[in-house]
């Protein structure tokens, strides 16, 4: 069997956490550590390039622009987007989702979403609802599963868009994006997908999945730095209708005081996070080299072991579908008789395990799985975690559960 991504990365990251002796299980919030190539690309940009991409024509400005462009190309390749210029960079996936929702929807439009969304989608949608956009939130099963038929049944004559997270950030449940994509095509709706939890960890193919708008984050499973992400604008999207969140300098059409109307400049005003995008490019190329399928297989193995181990502990409740093949490497659970905040503190202080507890910015998801308002303890794994770390965590949770029970 080929070397697992985790082992490969451990070699690529000097002083990785296994040597430090701590277990980082908060990868669903941001991945750590990053491949060494990510840091190297950022250092190279700062030391050797440093110029403003797309703002001048001297050699280093062109080199900076080329590094940003190559990141666009890598992202387009990973998600099978036909044209790299349709990859619009943003500060994070939240900004990307805001651009797609606030930029596209108008009063009188109807939009459909699920009951397991992150606030990156729910908050802009609730604001749009206040401004006259009609919203239907389709219920999910308690394990987070969404029935595509319920999405279709919610469609009306004024429905213009379906927005779904690809996988829940709370329980990892993967939503049936491809099936909903097929419904969206058939009914002439746009499908907007929030890939915060899946981009780089689960196969995404814009064409095959029927995705029209894809919001992605750079700092989770693409292994880039924070402050990177973006929106891929598919061919079916009317770019004229999509309004930018901000307007300003783009380095193009400088003689005009009117915002450019072409991609990506229309949506990329202001100096880009070029150092971050240089790092993101290295992260995406690392994912492409390791292979999403291989990363996925390793994560699924760890995840199933985690689910089975937690389920076997008396007094522990695990949420979601309990099947690794139907979810990401994110596992939510609770310990009977101990609040999630207490579990998180004890894991950190007594067992050197870092995770995230509470509501995870997703009150809707916690209502769906029945854990609102206390929340859950969430382990978010990455391709560089190992079986022995999962075993250590299981032993630690076992101790806490015994004490609390």
């Amino acid at each position: 069997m080929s070397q697992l991504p985790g082992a490969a990365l451990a070699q690529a990251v000097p002083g990785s956490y296994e040597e430090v002796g701590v277990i980082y299980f908060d990868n669903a919030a941001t991945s750590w550590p990053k491949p060494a190539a990510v840091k190297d690309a950022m250092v190279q940009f700062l030391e050797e390039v440093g110029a403003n991409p797309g703002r001048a024509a001297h050699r280093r400005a062109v080199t900076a622009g080329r590094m940003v462009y190559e990141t666009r190309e890598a992202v387009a390749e990973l998600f099978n987007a036909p044209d790299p210029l349709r990859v619009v960079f943003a500060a994070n996936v939240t900004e990307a989702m805001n651009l797609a929702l606030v930029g596209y929807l108008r009063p009188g439009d109807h939009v459909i979403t699920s009951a397991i969304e992150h606030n990156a989608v729910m908050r802009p949608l609730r604001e749009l609802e206040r401004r006259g956009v009609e919203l239907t939130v389709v219920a999910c099963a308690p394990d987070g599963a969404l029935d595509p038929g319920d999405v279709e049944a919610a469609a009306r004559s004024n429905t213009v868009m379906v927005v779904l997270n690809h996988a829940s950030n709370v329980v990892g449940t993967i939503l049936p994006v491809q099936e909903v994509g097929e419904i969206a095509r058939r009914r002439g709706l746009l499908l907007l997908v929030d890939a915060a939890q899946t981009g780089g960890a689960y196969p995404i193919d814009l064409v095959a999945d029927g995705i029209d708008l894809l919001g992605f984050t750079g700092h989770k499973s693409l292994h880039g730095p924070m402050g990177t992400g973006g929106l891929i604008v598919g061919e079916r999207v009317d770019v004229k209708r999509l309004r930018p969140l901000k307007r300003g300098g783009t380095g193009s059409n400088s003689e005009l005081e009117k915002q450019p109307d072409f991609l990506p400049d229309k949506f990329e005003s202001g100096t880009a996070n070029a150092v971050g995008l240089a790092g993101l490019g290295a992260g995406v190329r690392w994912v492409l080299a390791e292979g999403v399928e291989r990363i996925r297989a390793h994560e699924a193995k760890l995840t199933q072991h985690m689910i089975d181990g937690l389920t076997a502990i008396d007094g522990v409740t695990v949420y979601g579908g309990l099947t690794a093949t139907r979810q990401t490497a994110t596992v939510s659970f609770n310990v009977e008789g101990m609040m999630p905040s207490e579990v998180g503190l004890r894991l950190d202080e007594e067992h050197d395990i870092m995770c995230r507890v509470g509501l995870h910015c997703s009150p809707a998801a916690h209502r769906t799985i029945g854990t609102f308002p206390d929340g859950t303890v969430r382990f978010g794994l990455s391709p560089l975690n190992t079986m022995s770390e999962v075993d250590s965590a299981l032993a630690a949770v076992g101790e806490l559960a015994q004490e609390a029970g």
Partner: protein
Amino acid sequence: MTDGDYTVLLVYSTSHALRAEKLLARAGIDCKLIPVPRELSSDCGVCVRVGREERLRAEQVLEDAELEIEGVHNV
């Protein structure tokens, strides 16, 4: 302006110019990104310079990739 040995292709933005550079390189056409000559446009960006003998082939490569060309000038 005196005619030289080059043709410049004007595109909408630096991102477009960088895409053009990649597409042309893949097609085996030598090119260089240069500042847009002031006589051609008041834009502050870059354009794509190719050897004049590559003009038609370069235009075809960009057209095939649906990369819109704003203007073509011999310089």
